[in-house]
């Protein structure tokens, strides 16, 4: 009997997502043959709302575009506003902004590493990375008072200074995180189970990555050497030395290596920032009304290039604010990566672009084309399906989970 074609809908709603999306997969057996994407379920009208509020209100609003890269969006927005207003932000202010950027990248990438571990059944990796992530969350809370939505930015600089007592605390946390990340690199490069599970999954060639407009670690893992921090430097990135991490694996394994590599670069950057940070004021007074003009601002968020366009009309409210979050650029890419792949790989491939997937229990409906019957499966069931499916192929994390736990306990 020939395999029947089955259509499978994934999504769309989940309260934790910045951009919930609905994927309609066409399946032939275990293979995905076609896929379409429906977006916009959580369109909150932030751009319109910005036109009705003052610049400073907008800054707090824009910070809430994303719960994870909140500093990315607020920085990207005020960089444009500051450019239009001709404000010279004091050096120390820019250094502190950059410090928060890198701490945010660290917490975001550690979060991702945990989610990736979870989706493939590598629970010990999730527990370790999220434990470690607490170190950087504590540092962010120490500096800003908040774990997320730090509220550090203001038009013209930052709202809080870094004190001399905070510096050793930050450095000590970074030392611990670096040591732990080295261990993850070791696990990533030496553990055969992890490599086998992620290699060849969610393939994206360099040509496709460029053509489809992939951004961030997703693009860099396909050998696309682009990073706004280096190519279009903002804040103080022009004064710092760091490597842009790329990888040629062009699959989920490559995306994992790029992110752990970027963690190591972020630790280097944090140390440089704290060493080079000059004394002086952290903020310059900004006018309430911004003169007419326009600016476009780019920012390398943990998930890729964030783009904001701001047009000012001389009043205290902007004429237009446009936000292009990195996930929007990567969603087309996910559709491409899933094609010709296995249903069991869907959770990790979607998670691998890091679409702010903090927790995932979205409803999945399966429709049998021949009899029109609809079955429902939720995300945990699909995840379990993926883990069990690979377990039958001999890729099982149970042993590795146990082994790593024992190793660290004996240390």
């Amino acid at each position: 009997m020939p395999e029947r074609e089955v259509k499978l809908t994934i999504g769309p709603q989940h309260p934790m997502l910045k951009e919930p999306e609905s994927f309609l997969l066409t399946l032939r057996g275990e293979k995905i043959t076609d896929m379409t994407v429906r977006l916009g379920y959580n369109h909150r009208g932030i751009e319109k709302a910005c036109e009705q509020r003052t610049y400073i209100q907008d800054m707090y609003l824009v910070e809430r575009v994303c719960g994870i890269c909140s500093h990315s969006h607020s920085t990207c927005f005020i960089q444009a506003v500051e450019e239009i207003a001709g404000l010279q932000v004091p050096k120390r202010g820019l250094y502190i902004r950059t410090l928060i950027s890198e701490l945010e990248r660290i917490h975001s990438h550690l979060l991702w590493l945990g989610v990736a571990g979870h989706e493939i059944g590598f629970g010990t990796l999730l527990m370790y990375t999220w434990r470690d992530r607490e170190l950087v969350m504590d540092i962010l809370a120490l500096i800003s008072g908040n774990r997320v939505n730090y509220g550090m930015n203001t038009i013209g600089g930052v709202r809080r200074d870094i004190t001399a007592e905070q510096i050793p605390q930050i450095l000590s946390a970074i030392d611990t995180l670096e040591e732990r990340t080295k261990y993850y690199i070791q696990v990533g490069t030496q553990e055969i189970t992890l490599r086998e599970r992620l290699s060849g999954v969610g393939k994206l060639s360099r040509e496709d990555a460029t053509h489809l407009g992939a951004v961030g670690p997703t693009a860099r893992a396909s050998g696309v050497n682009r990073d706004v921090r280096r190519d279009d430097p903002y804040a103080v990135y022009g004064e710092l030395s760091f490597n842009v991490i790329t990888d040629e694996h062009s699959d989920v394994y490559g995306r994992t290596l790029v992110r752990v590599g970027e963690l190591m670069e972020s630790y280097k950057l944090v140390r440089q920032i704290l060493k080079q940070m000059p004394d002086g004021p952290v903020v310059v007074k900004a006018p309430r009304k911004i003169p007419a003009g326009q600016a476009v601002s780019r920012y390398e968020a943990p998930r890729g290039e964030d783009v904001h366009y701001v047009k000012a009309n001389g009043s205290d409210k902007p004429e237009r604010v446009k936000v292009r979050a990195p996930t929007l650029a990567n969603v087309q890419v996910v559709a491409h990566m899933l094609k010709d792949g296995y249903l069991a790989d869907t959770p990790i491939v979607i998670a691998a672009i890091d679409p702010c997937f903090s927790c995932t229990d979205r409803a999945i409906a399966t429709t049998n084309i021949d009899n029109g019957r609809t079955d429902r499966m939720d995300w945990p069931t699909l995840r379990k399906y993926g883990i069990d499916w690979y377990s039958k192929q001999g890729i099982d994390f149970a042993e590795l989970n146990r082994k790593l736990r024992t190793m660290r306990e004996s240390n």
Partner: protein
Amino acid sequence: MLAEEEKIKQQLAERFGLPAEKITVQRERRIWADVQAAEFGEIFDYAVDKLGFVILATITGLDEGPTLGVIYHIARESGIILNLHISVPKDKPVIKTISARFPAADAYEREMVDLLGMQVEGLPPGNRYPLPDGWPAGQYPLRKDWKSDTIGKTEVTENA
């Protein structure tokens, strides 16, 4: 310091006979050009193919009163952004799609269709974005005369 940017400005001006005041070098890595909608396709192709603006950062749609504006933010690998601006009349807001060249433009163009009432020729069939399927026709939230309470009030009446 702005040698590269000025060179691009000159190349565009010479090739398409654009008046100097229509192209502005705002600062390092930021060029703005105001072009006629009819000439846009040719200028865009030239910028991508010959001047190396191979990255589409995004597309911004604007309500400019009697016209709708579109800004194509395209970038070079080296970081320079060229912002190409066109205007089309609001009563006939028609532009051509660039999604064949940049598939990511699909989402940015649909956004202008839904939020500003732009008509994009050549856009492949697909789901709307970002408004819901049942959104009333002719309601374009990013138009300046549109207020959020118009829709809100309707919903309250229905629920009462």
